[in-house]
């Protein structure tokens, strides 16, 4: 592929679009399992409780904070897209995209600190 076709891939806004797409894909993969986990309560509360105790493991909590990051970065990235498409153009899109990722990382880190 010529460098002319891939030169834009270093752009903050291309990376933002890619993060938005990949975070959405990650959330789509996670959602069926999330629903299945909640569905454990159909059999008994004890089954759901047993699953929740399994999620007390550090690596699961770490994964959950990753999911919080994905959710927030996808939300903020999506809001940016909606604003761009429906309102007057505003400068500073690269800064806004960076701010969205930073805000998602901060909230995910706060979540991680709270659950440990």
């Amino acid at each position, binding site marked *: 592929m010529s460098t002319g076709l891939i030169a834009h891939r270093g752009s903050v806004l291309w990376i933002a679009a890619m993060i938005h797409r990949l975070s959405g894909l990650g959330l789509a993969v996670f959602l069926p399992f999330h629903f299945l986990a909640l569905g454990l309560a159909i059999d008994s509360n*004890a089954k759901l409780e047993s699953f929740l105790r399994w999620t007390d493991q550090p690596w699961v909590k770490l994964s959950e904070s990753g999911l919080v990051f994905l959710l927030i970065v996808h939300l903020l990235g999506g809001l940016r897209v909606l604003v761009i498409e429906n309102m007057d153009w505003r400068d500073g899109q690269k800064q806004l995209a960076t701010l969205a990722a930073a805000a998602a990382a901060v909230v995910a880190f706060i979540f991680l600190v709270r659950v440990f």
Partner: protein
Amino acid sequence: MNIRLYLWQRGTAALLAPLVLVHIAVIFYATRQGLSAADVLSRTHDSIVWASYYALFVAAVSIHASIGLRNILAEWSPLTPRAADWFAIMFGVLLAMLGARAIYAVVLA
């Protein structure tokens, strides 16, 4: 993506934004002292408000995610557009069914 799918994608995105904000707030509230089944179910059981909120959430996210998945498959996978359509539809239906089952589990069961 045709105009109809574009409008559904953006419409459900706009609907999901406030729902996700509430969900994030609930995540932080629910995990403040550790998550337990008793806590979760005491909030949701027999609650028409939470049932309505999650029903709206599941419906919107099933549409939003399946259209997004369709776009990714159409652009990144070797699937034909028609196969990508069918895969996305099946994924959306699966999400809606599992979501409805989850709502039943935490609200009605």
